């Protein structure tokens, strides 16, 4: 169908989700209760806001991911043509991956992969 299919699929997803949620609305008789809107915390009153500090590890892994994800994007065009170019392309990508691997080893040495 070509590129139109993407728009059609987005419309299908919205129709499906909205249809489901609206169908749910039809049947529900809502009740009001002061504690109904409280965050779920195993039945005890909420202690503090969850929007506080969280573990720095998630941030470090996200940064590391960014480096390797960009690498992966660079590898896609290479992967398509590598068979035609031959051994030169392999040697070139060897350098590319070697440099990244040094960076990876550096991150490892600095303790970025350790979960404290």
């Amino acid at each position: 169908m070509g590129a139109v299919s993407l728009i059609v699929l987005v419309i299908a997803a919205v129709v499906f989700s909205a249809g489901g949620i609206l169908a749910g609305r039809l049947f529900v008789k809502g009740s009001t209760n002061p504690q109904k809107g409280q965050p779920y915390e195993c039945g005890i009153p909420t202690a503090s806001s969850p929007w506080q500090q969280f573990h720095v590890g998630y941030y470090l892994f996200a940064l590391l991911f960014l480096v390797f994800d960009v690498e992966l994007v660079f590898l896609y065009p290479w992967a398509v043509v590598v068979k035609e170019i031959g051994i030169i392309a392999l040697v070139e990508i060897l350098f590319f991956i070697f440099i990244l691997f040094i960076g990876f080893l550096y991150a490892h040495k600095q303790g970025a992969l350790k979960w404290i």
Partner: protein
Amino acid sequence: MFSLEHITNEVQNWLSSNFSSGWVLVWECLIVIVLTTGLFAVLGLVLVLMERKVAAQIQIRLGPNRVGPRGMLQTVADTLKLVMKEGLTPDLADKFLFNLAPFLVMMVAMLLLAPIAFARGFQLWDINIGVLYISAVSSLSVIGILMAGWASNNKYSLLGAMRSGAQIVSYELSAGMAVLSIVVLSGSLQITEIIQSQQNGWWLFKGHIPAVIAFVVFIIAVTAETNRAPFDLAEAESELTAGFHTEYSGMKFALFFLAEYINIFIVCAIGATLFLGGWMPLHIGSWGGFNHLMDYIPSSIWFLGKTFLLIFLIMWFRWTFPRLRVDQLLALEWKYLLPISMLNLLLVTLIAILGWHF
């Protein structure tokens, strides 16, 4: 002979002979919307039932067996129950993002259907960068999950979303590397060309040991990417209640649940396409009679069979391996899978250049 390609062509011809070109497009769009939403609904019902039945078989019990014949209608009853439930929004939640997140997750799941070839000539859009498209769009699902977790204003949700985010982005790397090794072997990003290149044998068999390593890495990575056990830290029931969708209820919860199962189907379909030849029948070298016999099985059956085989494998994992800790999970990816898949990619390249694959 019955085939989906034949039916679509018939429908296309009938439409174009009866309507003007603009209306043909409108009708096609409507048909696609009906088919994809139907597929989602059916897949949700079938996969949830399959999960429960597989779990029951592995644990030597019966599983759902009250509603309908042999419990076949259990998930229909469950869906009806979910429709009846009220969809709550917590008072302190970020209401806009909270309600947007299920839509986003469903949209990503739906968009991933576009380049998948369900049968010979039965594909929505044969985009020439199909594999890149899949890895680009599938990485969007993490945004929906983080959005849901953050907007819920709940500690369990936030922690689950953070874990899920770290896990999905990490395992995306080795999944991407495994996919790349097939791209190197077939020399194309287009799904149909990748399938065509497996006419005389699937890449899993043609690519020697590196292809098998890539397949194993791929299966591990997609199990983690879809937040399935043993990598289900994001929604570890015993620690986080339900992870990022703790605060969701009713149909909004159902949409998250459905998107999760649809994602399993999609990643298994991609795995089946890349490694097991998509809709290609099993052909063995020069066994003419055998190959001819295999050709009689319709291509859609081949595709669904391979996909459901992989889905069964992933469901099997859940009842075989214990859950990992979050540091073990990230160590597995960064210290083992990523270096292995990098080296494996180089090995695959060497094999492809020297022409050692069959």
